[in-house]
């Protein structure tokens, strides 16, 4: 992991805040090329925000986010749109366009970014839909799909331009065990077959540990631990242990900060 060439994304000294609230302080992260990297951490630590920063949808207060040599925050709007054609992103809700069929949703990036003839677009779309197992659903509207199916269609759309990087925002949240298994399998298989860099943001520990090559644990605005799944499992620090084993109380307290319990009860109205 020492050679800079081995990283697709290099984040250095990143700081970001929303209003008064600081989300990241001096965050550093290197995402290895061609691997599945997971960014994990408790809810509300800004994992999704990090993906939006990488995608250039938000601008950081300070720091660099380098993607294959381009510093994302300094790009012009036109350059940013060009860089985004090398990224695929799977949103938590799938975010399919509700006024288009499944086929048109997957074809959309091709129609916008390429001049391919119609029959070739059709072939590519059908191949991607076949890869996620939904070639038969090509004529359906997004409202006719189950949550898991919608996410698979969104995955087909995210990889239709053969991006260098695919970002997954909470891909397993709210899925039944079968759909979850299908997704875990797909992410792994597609990553191996297409060789792109995958970034998964999640707090589903078991599923994520099962497919990730490398993990960053983010809490309180910075990386508190990183390593392979095995390394993190063996980590002895309190914070890492609490998260990895899902303990209800620890450094992340069960109680929201409050005044003295007895005093408040005695005070009455």
């Amino acid at each position, binding site marked *: 992991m020492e050679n800079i060439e081995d990283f697709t994304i290099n984040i250095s000294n990143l700081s970001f805040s929303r209003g008064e609230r600081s989300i990241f302080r001096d965050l550093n992260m290197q995402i290895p090329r061609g691997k599945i990297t997971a960014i994990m951490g408790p809810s509300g630590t800004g994992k999704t925000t990090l993906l939006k920063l990488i*995608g250039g*949808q938000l601008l950081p207060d300070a720091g660099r986010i380098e993607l294959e040599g381009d510093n994302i925050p300094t790009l012009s709007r036109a350059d940013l*749109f*060009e860089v985004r054609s090398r990224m695929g992103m799977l*949103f938590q809700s799938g*975010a399919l366009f509700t006024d288009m069929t499944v086929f048109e949703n997957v074809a959309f990036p091709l129609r916008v970014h390429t001049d391919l003839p119609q029959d070739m677009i059709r072939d590519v779309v059908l191949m991607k839909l076949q890869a996620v197992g939904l070639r038969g659903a090509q004529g359906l509207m997004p409202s006719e799909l189950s949550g898991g199916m919608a996410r698979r269609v969104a995955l087909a759309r995210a990889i239709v331009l053969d991006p260098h990087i695919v970002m997954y925002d909470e891909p397993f949240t709210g899925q039944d065990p079968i759909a979850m298994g299908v997704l875990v399998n797909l992410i792994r298989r597609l990553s191996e077959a297409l060789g792109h860099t995958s970034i998964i943001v999640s707090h589903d520990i078991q599923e994520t540990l099962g497919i990730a090559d490398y993990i960053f644990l983010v809490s309180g605005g910075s990386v508190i631990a990183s390593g392979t799944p095995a390394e993190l499992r063996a980590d002895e620090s309190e914070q890492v242990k609490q998260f990895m084993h899902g303990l209800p109380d620890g450094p992340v307290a069960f109680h929201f900060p409050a005044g003295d319990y007895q005093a408040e009860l005695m005070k009455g109205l």
Partner: protein
Amino acid sequence: MLDRLQTLGHIGLEGLSALGRSGSLLAHALIARPQPMVMFPLLLKQIYFVGVLSLVIILVSGTFIGMVLGLQGYTILVSYGSEQAVGQMVALSLVRELGPVVTALLFAGRAGSALTAEIGLMKATEQLSSMEMIGVDPYRRIIAPRFWAGFICLPILAAIFSTVGVWGGALVSIDWLGIYEGSFWANMQHSVDFYDDVLNGLIKSVVFGFVVTWVAVYQGYDCVPTSEGISQATTRTVVYASLWVLGLDFILTALMFGDF
């Protein structure tokens, strides 16, 4: 006292910032290299949703308002013995005022709120974000065609409103109240001027089309992406757009017909 001053300042700053955001939204959406091949089908689709689907409410309201004008005009004018002038009264009030204004108000309620809710829901379901991540500018793809559709449709709807209104007035005055048909139409023809009345009314509806659609797309794009946020934004669209229409109507009327 200091608190009130602070609140006033806060409201002022909020207003300015909203104006800035909405201005930048419009600039981003409209100032760009034209792509007729991409834009035209999108525009047609929006004209259908925003314009064609508003036709029924415009036709029905226009007819009834024209009929009411005919009836009210007759009952007032008949006491002066000048009920023959009801044609010109109906036509002038429709073409100068009621056509553009009522159409804009109905349009804000029917199409404006739908635009806000649609864009807001796209934001809430991350469709706008995902479009951005695919590398397509939602300003161009979502905002621009909707804005142009409203801008184009409102003047046409206002013209249709005035036309069926005149027809409704004629229905009541001639067929029901028995005013002589010849003087009804002749009075109207004589007193309605193309530049002073028809064109000024058209200019009004163009301005209203611009403002109502602008408010609608801005409120949708700027809303808090939750169900509560969308419902508030939809309400705001109707309220703000209506207030803007009524306020601007006074200013435009003063500029066009005021004698100073």
